[in-house]
């Protein structure tokens, strides 16, 4: 029996034959995630328990086969793409909500639980889970932990790490352990915080204890159309400058909002250029007051139309337009390269005009979608992989945009992680020393570089032999 056969048999012994995929033609569906990056895995498994995950990790260690953890595969930095082959451990079958404690306002979840399902279930107790990535209808909490995901409402509530009390992880040795505390913030060195956002390079997260929040008494959602992107950007700065912290301020430029409108009929006016989606939540009286204040501020920027969501249905529709906008770009071309750079809010207007200049220079369409409230840009470069040279052009444009972000005091990623796509840009922001410290940290967890190799670090040589 060759290595391949015996390894395969041992995988089957652990998870059962229904949950092992080795057929090359079948594995093609595990080649990519939400990005255009591709890499063929050597094996795919879907374990049903943490014990099985641990056994798989020990087995892969024995054979020196790299491990790539995968949730729903909606990531936008190529994090779950097995760029140099290996074993995919997909946690989608581990998708039970194990417990919701309404008194403590916490939930215990398996890693494969879908983000939106948490709030759905918690709503029975008047609670919700705050981080809401745009892909929340499909993305898994395990993936959110790996990427330290954000979302529109993270403006007011903070990103994933602010909402995680504890995580159960399988370390690269196969050891199962917990980081963090069930009841309050952890004491001692915060391994929980260290692990969250490590993009699958420190181990696999298998269970998560999240904090839940009380649903607000009142929510109000604005859809505001502007004549140009500057007015929208300046209105954003003014609103936050006035002291109001909306739970979300989202921006879509002309290209993006057109595609979103086509997909949803959310009611974005025909002649609109840039759209802001603003949400405020809190006690009834406060909301009424803030609503008037926001209207006053916005009116200074000559809006085309200010729409207020009449009911939950309309609010959901506004959000559907915003959250589905990336997918909606498929109406323009089949591929996108999404840049996740984040800049100080006051620089938004300037950086956006630079982005548009660059797009013109490259002759590519860029749709701008922003978490404007926290300066998180999502310039989305639209291209067609089938057109020769376009992929390279899109990648170079993405790099140039990131350079502009960093030059203006920004960072490479707001919420999607570095993954595979942005690793070569790390030196723009970090010195060699910085990167070496990160590598040392990785070394403590995964000295053999067996977990998600080829991610985050630029030109890190993968020393592991691939099984042939």
């Amino acid at each position, binding site marked *: 029996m060759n290595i391949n056969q015996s390894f395969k048999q041992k995988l089957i012994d652990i998870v059962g034959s229904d949950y092992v995929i080795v057929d090359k033609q079948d594995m093609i569906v595990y080649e990519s995630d939400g990005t255009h990056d591709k890499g063929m895995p050597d094996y795919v498994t879907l374990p049903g328990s943490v014990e099985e995950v641990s056994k798989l990790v020990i087995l892969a260690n024995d054979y020196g086969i790299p491990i790539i953890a995968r949730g729903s595969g*909606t990531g936008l930095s190529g994090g779950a793409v097995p760029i140099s082959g290996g074993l995919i451990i997909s946690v989608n079958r581990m998708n039970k909500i194990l417990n919701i404690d309404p008194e403590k306002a916490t939930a215990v979840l398996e890693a494969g639980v879908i983000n939106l399902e948490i709030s759905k279930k918690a709503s029975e107790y008047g609670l919700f889970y705050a981080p809401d990535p745009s892909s929340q209808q499909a993305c898994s909490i395990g993936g959110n932990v790996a990427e330290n995901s954000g979302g529109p409402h993270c403006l007011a509530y903070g990103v994933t790490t602010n909402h995680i009390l504890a995580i159960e992880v399988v370390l690269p040795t196969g050891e199962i352990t917990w980081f963090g505390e069930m009841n309050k913030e952890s004491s001692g060195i915060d391994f929980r915080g260290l692990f969250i956002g490590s993009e699958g390079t420190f181990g696999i997260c298998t269970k998560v204890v999240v904090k839940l929040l009380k649903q607000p008494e009142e929510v109000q959602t604005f859809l505001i159309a502007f004549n140009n992107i500057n007015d929208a950007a300046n209105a954003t700065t003014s609103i936050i400058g006035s002291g109001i912290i909306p739970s979300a301020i989202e921006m879509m430029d002309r290209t993006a909002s057109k595609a979103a409108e086509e997909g949803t009929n959310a009611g974005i006016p025909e002649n609109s250029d840039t759209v802001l989606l603003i949400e405020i939540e809190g006690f009834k009286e406060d909301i009424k007051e803030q609503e008037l204040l926001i209207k006053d501020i916005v009116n200074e920027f000559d809006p085309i139309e200010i729409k207020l969501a009449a009911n939950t249905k309309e609010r959901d529709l506004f959000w559907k337009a915003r959250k589905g906008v*990336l997918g909606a770009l498929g109406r323009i071309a*089949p591929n996108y390269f999404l840049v996740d750079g984040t800049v100080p809010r006051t620089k938004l207007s300037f950086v956006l005009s630079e982005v548009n200049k660059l797009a013109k220079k490259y002759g590519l369409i860029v749709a701008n979608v922003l978490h404007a409230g926290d300066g998180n840009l999502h310039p989305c470069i639209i291209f067609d992989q089938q057109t020769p040279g376009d992929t390279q052009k899109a990648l170079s444009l993405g790099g140039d945009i990131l350079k502009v972000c960093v030059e203006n005091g920004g960072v490479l990623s707001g919420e999607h992680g570095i993954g595979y796509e942005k690793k070569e840009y790390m030196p723009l922001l970090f010195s060699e020393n910085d990167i070496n410290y990160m590598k040392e940290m990785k070394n403590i967890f995964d000295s053999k570089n067996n977990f998600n190799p080829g991610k985050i670090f630029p030109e890190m040589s993968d020393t592991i032999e691939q099984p042939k």
Partner: protein
Amino acid sequence: MTIKSYIDNVKDEVYKCVHCGFCLTACPTYLVSGQELESPRGRITLMKATIESEIIPDSNTFAHWDRCIQCRACEPACPSGVNYGLLIEATKTGMNEVRSESFIYRYNLKIILNLLISKWFVNLNALIFRIYNKLKISQLINKVKLNKLLPKKINELEKMIPIINGFPLKSGNYPSDTNNNFKVMLFRGCVMPGIHGDNMRKTIYLLNHLGFDVEVLDNEVCCGSISSHNGDSDMTLKLAKTNIDNFLQNESKYLLISSAGCGTRIKEYNHLFNKNSSYYNKALLLKEKTMDIYEFLYNNLPFKPEGNINLTVSYQPACHLINTQKIIDPPVELLKMIPGIKYVELPSSNICCGAGGAYSITQPEWSKKVLNKKMTEFKSINADILTVSNPGCLIQLQNGIQESSISSDIMYVTDLLYNSYLKGEKNES
């Protein structure tokens, strides 16, 4: 033509998919397996790989496409607006072409499809099943423990024998007592009139009670869903043309449909024809004239139901009603109009029950997995009645209710409306 060329025909639609993954959790087979291969994104990736010659589809690939229930819940979930129905149908047609190279497959499929759409065959079966029901053979098998002796497959099939509600529905005119002169046609379809004759008659009496004259055409044929789901495009075309001609000739204002799958097929007849074909425009004319029964009732109700029904009622929408025809609120709103009813929402009601036309017969194992999940959710709400809007859902969920030994009833939304309008006790206030 190879399967590749069939998928090539819908290439533009394939490339609209940006594999964002938003469709995953809308897909019933993904939800019960967690497997990318059993998801819309996975199936489209396989199509893309076929076009790009990265794979040569084999029986394994076919199996993943076959496991698609074609509920099309991925369509409303898709931000890019990929018309998945078009993709899977093209793929299925290509698969059928490949499989037809096998003589046995080709002729078996033809025979089965022809039988399924033939009225006498369906009625004959209905009669046999009716006798089977009446003689309580099923209980007898259990009593003498024959089920322990029969092979598992036969046992499973035996459990799927539907309960027959009355004699088959006959074609003809069913006038109301009024002089409204508002006439509608009611589509019979192939399976429903045989097994759910009583339910269809209730729909007709309900329409009559509300002042509408009803005609059931004798010369209508199967809508073509069964053949198009199984990739027989020649047969689908033939059936579509016959129906288009016959329905357009009739002077009735609308063609009403009480089976959501048929409704979608008929409303999408235009997909079958080239834009230059005369039938393309005729198909669009028929689309204008075609309405689902709930869409019609909701928009044309002359007066509200008054009979009390003091029960807890839930509703499982038909996939082809919500996902393709986008008829979401009308059945629920109609139910809520019935005095006394306590309406409870079924969790994840937008997910398919696993019926999917012939899916429960062609993919019994997967159909069962999907059904089991649905039944767990239904049990959690403790409803007296589960209402549905499509015959496939009724048969499947009736099966599920029996299997899980719960005492809830299952019926069409129209049955409950009929009960309230014609049988319910009016409030004396």
